[in-house]
Structure formats: structure tokens, C-alpha cells
């Protein structure tokens, strides 16, 4: 086993009855890595996680962890932690008892139990809440209990399902930092699920973008952000102007073809972020159909002969009023080439 494949999924297929949820997934996760599973709702993120945890039996494929094939190992013997989206705390137990649950099952008791549970509670800042029943806690506190409950088990892999989606904006930022800190301190291999690209980009060492039960792209945040391989990923990370390339021409979403402003690269399509659209001069013209102020920039909706184009410009340059005719350019050099389109 190399560190590069501490946890591997090998052609993993998962299904609910006859509906296939995940198709032949291949994925290698490094030891100590913080990996994000990113994708729209329903693409199979939770399902993948449940299979890794052992809560679901694969239709086919293999899962190996730390050199051992765990495909058929029951969930209670995998030592993989999972923080559920709902937290899944035990309402009849106190905070202390929740965190102690797994340790007690390992036969740990007495001073060692107290010491380890206290340490777990301290690491999430909940020492003062030790004797409370969990339903009395706020959502953020409940999540910390769930986190501590998994962490005290010293799991080989810790997985978190949408850990930030149930929190309000301020708590979300706080929790983000805290998860990152905890991961760096303990060195635990961590997988977290999100449908929010901002979270994934901010937190992860590596991002796995999923679509319809398959992996669309794997890469560092920079790679995903700058070089999306497909129109799907491009759209997901904020390239709002997407064009396919067919027979040497650009094809807009509505099917209208247009002649490119220069030679096209060898790709299936091109994508521009709104920022990459140059306003004021260029071969194309559009009518301003919408303007919105976004702090440092203004966003424009331009109606052109081949469809709607989204552009963005600094507020420092003079703006355009509604219904103004604006010339613009979509420089090939500023576009991200896409290897797959549609």
C-alpha cells in the first residue's frame, strides 16, 4: 500500500433496489488528505459515503482501506467515522454519554473513559455541556457533539455529510475553520460532502466533482477552479458563458453558431467567466437587459444575436445603462477549454 491509496474505491457500483445510484466509481484517497465530494443534490455523494462506511452493500466493486479489502467487513468493524447530516445524536443520552458510547463498546471504562471523553469534548469546546441532554443543544453544538463522538474513536477515516449546510452564515465560517484546524492537528483522513463549490474550494486539499453517480473531475481547488474539464464542472464553478465547438465554430446554448474571433483550440467547448468578457470593444454587440451592483463590480446581462451573455466589470470603469448597445469581446485566450461538452 502506498500513501496515495490509503482508501480506494475500485469500480464501485451502488444501487437502491433497481435504481443505480453510483456507477463504477474509481477513487484513491491519500492518507491525511482532506477531500471534498462536490456535486448537485442527488448525484450520489451520500450514497458513496454510506458505502464507504459499510451502511450499504455494493452491487459490485471493491473498497480497500489501509491495505485491507473491507468490501465485506460489517460497518461496526471498519472504524470509519461518519457525522450525519442530521447529526443522529442519541436523544436519551447526555452529551458525555453520547461521546462515550463507542468507547464503552470497546470495553473502555473508568478513568480512561473519562479522560478521553473529556479530551474530545474539550477539543470541540463543549466541556461545560457535558451533563446536558442533546435535544437541549443548538444545532451548532449538536454538530460538535457528533464530531467529538466520531473523533474520540480515532477513526481511520472521518466523513462528514454536508457539515455546513444546516448552520447559519457566521457559524458556517467558524465551523469551516475549526474542521480545517482539527484535520491538520490530528492528521485524520477526512472526506466531506458538499453541494457548495465555495466550501469545497476553501476547505479541501482535493475536490472530487460528481455528476449522476459518476466522477466528472478530480483535482486541486486551483485545477477545478481554473481548468474545468467539462461544461458541467465549468458551470458548477462559475463559468457562466458556455459554448460548444462544432465544425470550427462556436455554438451557443440556443444552437446558434457564431464565428470565433480567432483560431479555436482543440477542445469540445469554451467557457468564459463573466469577468473574462471584455466590454466596450470587440466583434460582438449586445443590448444591456440587466445590471446589478455587486460591491466591487457590476454584473451585466447582455442580449446578443446568439443568446444571453453574462459579463462583469469593475465599478471603477464607467457603467452602461439599461438598453444600451455595447460592443464586447470573448477573447479565446481568456477562455477555459473544455474536453467534454453537455
Amino acid at each position, binding site marked *: 500500500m502506498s500513501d496515495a491509496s490509503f482508501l480506494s474505491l475500485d469500480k464501485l457500483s451502488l444501487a437502491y433496489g433497481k435504481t443505480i445510484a453510483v456507477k463504477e466509481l474509481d477513487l484513491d484517497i491519500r492518507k491525511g488528505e482532506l477531500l471534498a465530494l462536490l456535486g448537485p443534490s442527488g448525484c450520489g455523494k451520500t450514497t458513496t459515503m454510506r458505502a464507504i462506511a459499510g451502511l450499504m452493500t455494493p452491487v459490485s466493486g471493491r473498497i480497500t482501506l489501509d491495505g485491507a479489502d473491507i468490501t465485506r467487513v460489517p460497518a461496526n468493524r471498519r472504524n470509519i467515522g461518519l457525522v*450525519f447530516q442530521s447529526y443522529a445524536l442519541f436523544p436519551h443520552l447526555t452529551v458525555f454519554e453520547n461521546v462515550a*458510547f463507542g468507547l464503552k463498546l470497546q470495553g473502555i471504562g473508568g478513568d480512561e473513559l473519562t479522560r478521553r471523553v473529556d479530551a474530545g469534548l474539550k477539543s470541540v469546546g463543549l466541556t461545560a455541556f457535558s451533563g446536558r441532554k442533546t435535544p437541549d443543544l443548538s444545532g451548532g453544538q449538536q454538530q460538535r457533539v457528533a464530531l467529538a463522538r*466520531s473523533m474520540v474513536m480515532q477513526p481511520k477515516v472521518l466523513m462528514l455529510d454536508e457539515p455546513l449546510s444546516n448552520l447559519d452564515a457566521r457559524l458556517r465560517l467558524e465551523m469551516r475553520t475549526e474542521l480545517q484546524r482539527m484535520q491538520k492537528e490530528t492528521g485524520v483522513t477526512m472526506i466531506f460532502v458538499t453541494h457548495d463549490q465555495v466550501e469545497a474550494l476553501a476547505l479541501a486539499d482535493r475536490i472530487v466533482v460528481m455528476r449522476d453517480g459518476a466522477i466528472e473531475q478530480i483535482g486541486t481547488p486551483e485545477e477545478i477552479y481554473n481548468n474545468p474539464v467539462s461544461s458541467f464542472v465549468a458551470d458548477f464553478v462559475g463559468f457562466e458563458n458556455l459554448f460548444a465547438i462544432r465544425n470550427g465554430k462556436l455554438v451557443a446554448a440556443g444552437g446558434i453558431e457564431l464565428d470565433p474571433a480567432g483560431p479555436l483550440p482543440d477542445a469540445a467547448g469554451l467557457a468564459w467567466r463573466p469577468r473574462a468578457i471584455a466590454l466596450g470593444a470587440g466583434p460582438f454587440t449586445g443590448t444591456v437587459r440587466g445590471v446589478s451592483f455587486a460591491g466591487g463590480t457590476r454584473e451585466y446581462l447582455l442580449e446578443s444575436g446568439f443568446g444571453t451573455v453574462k459579463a462583469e466589470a469593475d465599478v471603477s470603469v464607467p457603467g452602461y445603462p439599461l438598453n444600451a448597445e455595447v460592443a464586447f469581446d470573448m477573447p479565446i485566450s481568456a477562455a477555459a477549454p473544455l474536453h467534454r461538452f453537455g
Partner: protein
Amino acid sequence: MTQRLYAPIILLLVMIFLIGPFFIIVAASFSAGDTLAFPPQGFSLKWIAKVFTVESFRQSFAVSMFLAIGGTLTALLLGIPASYAMSRYKLPLSETVRFLVSTPIIVPGIIVGLALLRYFVIPVGLSITLALFLAHTALVLPYAVRVVSASLANLRSDMEEAAVLLGSSRLGAFFRVVLPNIRGGILAAFILGFVTSFNQVPVSLFLSGPGVRTLPIDMLGYMEIVFDPSVAALSALLAFLSIGIVFAAERFLGFSRYV
């Protein structure tokens, strides 16, 4: 003005109709006279005392207690796993199972008793006690399944999964995580089942033999022969017993949440 009086007047009349007869029973049981009458003739505790001395009442009370407790416990033993399976597994037969265990609520009890008598007691020689026990268990089963299912539905299944991921077995997760959280529902089901079984008449009508009959059937039989206030006294005592149990359950458990 008429609107302000509407609620009190309606409610007073309806409550007199619903609960008044109960007070008459209570009053009649303190009568000193020898026949059932209202207003009672004089005051005495002799009829209440007599209840405890009638041998057949003592026997049938024991039978009814046994059926109510044993039948309900058995129904829970059968019903809890079934409810759990129906709520936690994708079971193709779920609807069939649910239909099967809930039929006793749709079919009139007298028919169940008769059917058991006709096909188990008479030809096979099944004892009356056992037949009563089976019938009362079947009768209570739908209530057990319904109440326990309702509390399971309020319990998210990812709690069991969390317990398993922390090292517990599936069975262990049921006992450590599920059971403590549906305890209230189970107790509610027990009380509901107990009261239903204890007060049940039609199921037991055909199932009585020498020395084996339920208390309500015994009371019906006694009334046909003797018309003294002892049945009133017994009714009043039983009513207070039921009310006491339900009141305590409501007080300590919020019983009505489950029913």
C-alpha cells in the same frame, strides 16, 4: 350574550350524558338497600365489601388480569419486531403484514371468539384458557403495532446507523438506541392494550368454561341472576382502577401523545 352561554350549556348537557351515569353507579354502590336503585337507600360499604368475597369475581378477575397482562405483553413481543421491520426495512410484504396484523380491528370480536371455539376448542381440544389468551393477544396486536409504529416513525433511523458505526451490532443498536427512545410508546401501547383487553366482552363471549371466564362476562352472568348493587360496586372499583392507571400514565408520560 347567547354565544357566551352556548359552550357552557352544551358542554354541561353532554357531560351529564357522558359521565352522569358513572356517578350514578358510584352512588349506587354505596347503597344500604338490597336492590339497585337511585337515589340510594341509605349509606353503607357492604356492597363494596361483598365484591371481594364473591368467589367467582375473584377467579374471573384473576383470569382477566392474566389475559390483559399476558396477552398485551405477548402482543408487544410480536408487534415490536414487526413494527420495527416495517419501519426500517424496505419490505415487499410490508403492506401484507400490516394488513394481517390489523385485521382484528376490522373483524367484530364475537366472530373471532366463535371461530376459535368452532375450529380450535371443539375439534382440537384447545383449552379455553389458551383460546382466550390467543384471542386477546390477537385483539391487542393491532393497537400494539399502531402505537409502536407511530413512535418508531418519529425516530430517525440514522441513529441506529450511528450506533453501528461506533461499533455496536444491529441487535445492540436496537437495545441501546431504539428501545430507550420508544419506551414511552411501548408503555402507552401496554396501557391501551391492557384496558382494551380487560374491558373486552364480545371476544370472550363464547370462550368460557368451568371456572374460566373473564370478569366482564362474569358480571353479565351475575346480573342475570342477582340484581343487587354489587355489580355497581365492582364496576365503580374497576372504573377507578382504569382511570387511575390512565391518569398516572398521562401525568408521567403524556400518554395521549401516543394514542
